[in-house]
């Protein structure tokens, strides 16, 4: 009896010791040098694995920064504070990057844009695109409004309001998950400091737009004529803003006869 107990203890103890020793040896043999900076940087990052930096997850970005292959300010979710901390760990200066925010160039809400058909299928833009015309709205440039972008957003910054995706610029970190998720490829990233953006993507002629949308850009050129900085140009029947020239005065938003130029002025926060 006592012999069995002792034997059991001895055998299991020996096995355990053997495996322990093997693992200890293995950990030396298979040791992989990891830059200690990498762990420090990883701890600073936002940890949402959003992919906004362009690397596969936070670990991938931390490794790239530690290896000196990436600038310290790419973590869009962490923003300025994170960039400063990462720059400090790496001992480099932190050139603040322009913070980007998502923007949906469409104003075709349920009342404004004419429907191609009544869609009752799964809540998925991609599914709605399968029924012909690539959209449930007559305007093929329009936001379908079934919320693939809203589902992809991890920061509660994308919402479907009246059938169109709307960005909450206070929550948006510019990770670009919605840009990836949009099957129509209409969501884009714009610099946060850019306060003016025409919220329409339709490049058809004015008369055609008039028929299908109450608010779409008709290419009347009024904004182009009146812009004091020559920053807004109508190209292929659609107003486009040159962000390098725009002085953010908001004049175009005031005079647009279709009221589609979005103005994210100071009052945006008090909405």
């Amino acid at each position, binding site marked *: 009896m006592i012999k*069995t107990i002792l*034997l*059991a203890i001895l*055998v*299991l103890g020996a*096995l*355990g010791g053997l*495996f*322990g020793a*093997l*693992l200890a040896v*293995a*950990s030396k*043999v*298979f*040791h*992989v040098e990891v830059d200690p900076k990498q762990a420090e940087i990883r701890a600073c990052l936002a940890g949402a694995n959003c992919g906004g930096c362009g690397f596969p997850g936070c670990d991938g970005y931390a490794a790239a920064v530690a290896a000196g292959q990436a600038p310290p300010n790419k973590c869009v979710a962490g923003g300025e504070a994170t960039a400063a901390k990462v720059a400090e760990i790496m001992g480099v200066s932190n050139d603040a990057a322009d913070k980007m925010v998502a923007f949906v160039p469409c104003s075709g809400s349920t009342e404004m844009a004419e429907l191609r058909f009544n869609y009752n299928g*799964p809540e*998925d833009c991609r*599914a709605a695109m399968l029924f012909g015309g690539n959209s449930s709205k007559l305007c093929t440039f329009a936001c379908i409004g079934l919320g693939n972008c809203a589902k992809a957003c991890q920061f509660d910054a994308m919402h479907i309001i009246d059938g169109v995706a709307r960005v909450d610029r206070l929550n948006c970190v510019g990770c670009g998950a919605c840009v990836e998720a949009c099957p129509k490829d209409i969501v884009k990233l714009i610099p946060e400091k850019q306060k003016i953006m025409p919220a329409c993507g339709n490049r058809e002629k004015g008369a055609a737009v008039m028929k299908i949308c109450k608010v779409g850009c008709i290419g009347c050129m009024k904004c182009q004529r009146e812009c004091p900085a020559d920053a807004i140009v109508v190209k292929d029947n659609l107003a486009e803003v040159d962000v390098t020239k725009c002085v953010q005065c908001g004049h175009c938003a005031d005079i647009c006869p279709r009221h589609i130029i979005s103005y994210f002025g100071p009052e945006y926060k008090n909405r």
Partner: protein
Amino acid sequence: MLAKIVEISLGAILINNFIFSQFLGCCPFLGCSNKVDTATGMGLAVVFVMGFASAICWVIDNYILVPLGLAFLETLAFILVIAALVQLVEMFLKKAVPSLYSALGIYLPLITTNCAVLGVVLLNVQNNYNFIESVVYGITGGLGFMLAIVLFATVRERTQFSDYPECFEGFPICLVSAALVALAFMGFSGMKIL
């Protein structure tokens, strides 16, 4: 010999599938089947560990535990082997095949607690398999697990696009679809190969 191996293989993959007919390894089956990619990763890791665990446990059981009359320690000793093995495999992969290591990610250490791995080594003992049969049973058992989890992941990916009552959101629909997939495997139950 060959006939026996074919019998073991088909048995482990289809007829006595670890998940669908023995109910082993249900935790990773439900936890890691959100996407086909992660399911494949988990499946591969399990095949890997099950094969090695079968081989090492067979040696330990037949050359140490049984001769010393300590067969009652099998469960304990096998857990020790599996835990150490998973650690070793993790270290080895990190050094030798970093791409596979990052693809398997968190699933590798999770296999330590996968009861299908312990199940396979205990069943090896119960069925009196020899060394080759044990390894074949381990690997094909892992392949059966992989088949089940990948099939289920494809089903789950489809449920995301279907219209089910809101109260089924999340785990309920997952369990219902798991039951339906398991029913399909019931078609194999009781089949005899030879």
